[in-house]
């Protein structure tokens, strides 16, 4: 053990034979780790923001729909009446209330919204305003007027793009036209099945999310109004569930599936209800792995180059040590010790720089408007300012990966040192 400490001490001191070279190498390798941490932090941060926004503009962390609704989007696929109450009781019960942030039953359909000036196809969403406020971000993005009142029976909230297209303002009148639901033969409906229905609505408020697809097409109206228009009183086709933590999605979905067993419903996590978004994350991760691989290769080659050069320069010294009785494995330990010391310095520098950058991007954020100037992409479903998020586990795994890469790579120069041949290595004159 003492021998190993001496060998490590020699390795450490060898590093400082050329302090400037060592520091430059350590800085280069440290910057590799810094880049890794910045890239992972921004990736995780953007994913977190994307999920947070996407679930709140979309279906929530978990959504309950009639069986087959995800694939067909068919209006006729309504949830059985007891699903809403059963889900409500379960989610507000002891087991789930600590993970629940809100849940909102919704009735979705498409229709045509007309004003005196124009008309546009819309995605109408009948909601209970109080419950929708706990789930959706749209109530928070009102830029003119107000969102629907809790006990409001009529009225509509529309996006800014749609308002511009229809040339309507708050208080203006619009006509919503849609087709009544063709319910299964066993179910009676108020409206004439399949008949076109229309209603006059007054614009309550205008929202702006910054997402073109939502601002130009989505409208919110009170649930009873929507149910009356579609002829399906007390029925909805979706219950969106928002959780405190995204990480609980799968657990909640599984519990709900168990709870609703036997009913013709599908319980989906946001990954299943918004598969395109989930796949984009997978693609992002894959791309990130490639980038991290490049960074690791840079780090590895840096370590290899530095240590190998140092080993080749000190062939005589290794010969001398070998002549004194040092065994090949001890020569290797000496080189690995030197490599680990260099890696440790690099990691310390990388951590200081990386965590500094992480702190900056976590508080000030990375403003993408600087890159996109005035025009943000219309398909943008995230805030233009990305805030870095880096978990302790991510930091630990990054540091461990760099450390293990550097250690594995140092075996080659260590092998070179261990293979020092006598008496050849001692020939200098």
């Amino acid at each position, binding site marked *: 053990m003492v*021998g190993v400490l*001496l060998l490590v001490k020699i390795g450490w001191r060898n590093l400082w034979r050329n302090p400037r070279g060592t520091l430059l190498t350590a800085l280069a390798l440290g910057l590799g780790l810094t880049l890794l941490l910045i890239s992972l932090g921004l990736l995780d941060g953007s994913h977190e923001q994307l999920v947070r926004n996407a679930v709140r503009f979309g279906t929530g962390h978990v959504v309950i729909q009639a069986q087959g609704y995800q694939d067909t989007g068919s209006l006729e696929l309504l949830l059985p009446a007891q699903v809403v109450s059963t889900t409500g009781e379960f989610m507000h019960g002891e087991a789930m209330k600590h993970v629940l942030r809100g849940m909102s039953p919704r009735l979705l359909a498409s229709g045509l919204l007309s004003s005196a000036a124009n008309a546009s196809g819309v995605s109408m969403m009948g909601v209970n305003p109080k419950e929708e406020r706990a789930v959706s971000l749209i109530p928070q993005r009102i830029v003119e007027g107000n969102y629907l009142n809790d006990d409001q029976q009529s009225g509509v909230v529309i996006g800014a793009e749609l308002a511009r297209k229809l040339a309507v303002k708050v208080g203006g009148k619009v006509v919503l036209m849609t087709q009544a639901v063709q319910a299964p033969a066993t179910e009676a409906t108020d409206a004439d099945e399949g008949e076109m229905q229309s209603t006059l609505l007054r614009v309550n408020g205008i929202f702006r999310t910054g997402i073109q697809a939502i601002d130009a097409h989505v409208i919110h109206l009170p649930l009873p109004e929507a149910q009356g228009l579609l002829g399906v009183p007390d029925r909805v086709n979706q219950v969106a569930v928002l959780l405190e933590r995204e990480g609980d999605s799968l657990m909640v979905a599984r519990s709900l599936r168990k709870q609703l067993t036997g009913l013709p419903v599908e319980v989906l996590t946001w990954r299943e209800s918004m598969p395109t978004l989930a796949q984009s994350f997978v693609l992002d991760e894959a791309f990130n792995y490639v980038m991290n691989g490049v960074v690791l290769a840079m780090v590895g080659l840096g370590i290899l180059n530095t240590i190998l050069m140092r080993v080749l320069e000190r062939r005589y010294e290794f010969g001398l040590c070998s002549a*004194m*009785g*040092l065994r090949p494995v001890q020569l290797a330990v000496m080189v690995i010790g030197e490599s680990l010391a260099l890696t440790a310095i690099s990691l310390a520098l990388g951590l200081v720089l990386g965590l500094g950058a992480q702190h900056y991007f976590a508080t000030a954020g990375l403003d993408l408007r600087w890159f996109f100037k005035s025009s943000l992409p219309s398909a943008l479903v995230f805030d233009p300012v990305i805030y870095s998020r880096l978990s302790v586990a991510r930091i630990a795994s990054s540091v461990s990966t760099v450390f293990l890469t550097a250690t594995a790579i140092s075996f080659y120069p260590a092998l070179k040192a261990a293979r020092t041949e006598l*008496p050849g290595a001692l020939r*200098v004159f």
Partner: protein
Amino acid sequence: MTELAVELKDVKKTYRTGPIEVPALRGISLSVAPGEFLAIAGPSGSGKTTLLNIIGGLDRADAGEVLVEGRNLQLLSTGELARLRLQRLGFVFQAYNLLPVLTALENAEFTLLLQGVPVEQRKERVQKLFSEIGLANLEHRRPGELSGGQQQRVAVARAMVTEPALILADEPTANLDSATATALLEVMEHLNRAHNTTFVYSTHDPLVMERARRLIRMRDGKIASDVAHAGQTL
């Protein structure tokens, strides 16, 4: 009967570089008794260094037997040779003997540390040896802060500190001026007499040859003469 420190029987060594063969030793037979102070002289290329390397287990003979304290080096594995060098042999080379990142003290105790000798004993043995050979107060200097003669004395101390049976020195005075070389030889002679350690060193310096109690002259890979200090041919 006292066991010989070194015994060589018809040792041959040839270096090969592609098709070219260069015979370095052409059948050397030699016996060295414990406590001898033996110089091997001869011009460059006469085989002095090869002979020392083979005696020290740094290189292997192509033929013949090499026995150190009765152990046939030809039969030892690389690891066993390393252990033998660590436990029973000491080396002093022409120059660059010390690890530049270690102090004089650390260099001298390096082999003791590898042998697992406790710290107190290590310090005591090195300090005693340093005082004996005039290195006191230089313990914490690094090689770059020592003169050539001081560095060679540290190398001798490192070779001696493990109390080896045999110290092999390959032209230890080659890079020293005559005064420093004489001082180094005095140190080696003192240690040889005081500790009865066998010294075998190579040289082509007539002044250094004179200090040996036995002088072997080599030429073209053979022993040309083997003479005791009194002038008696052995």
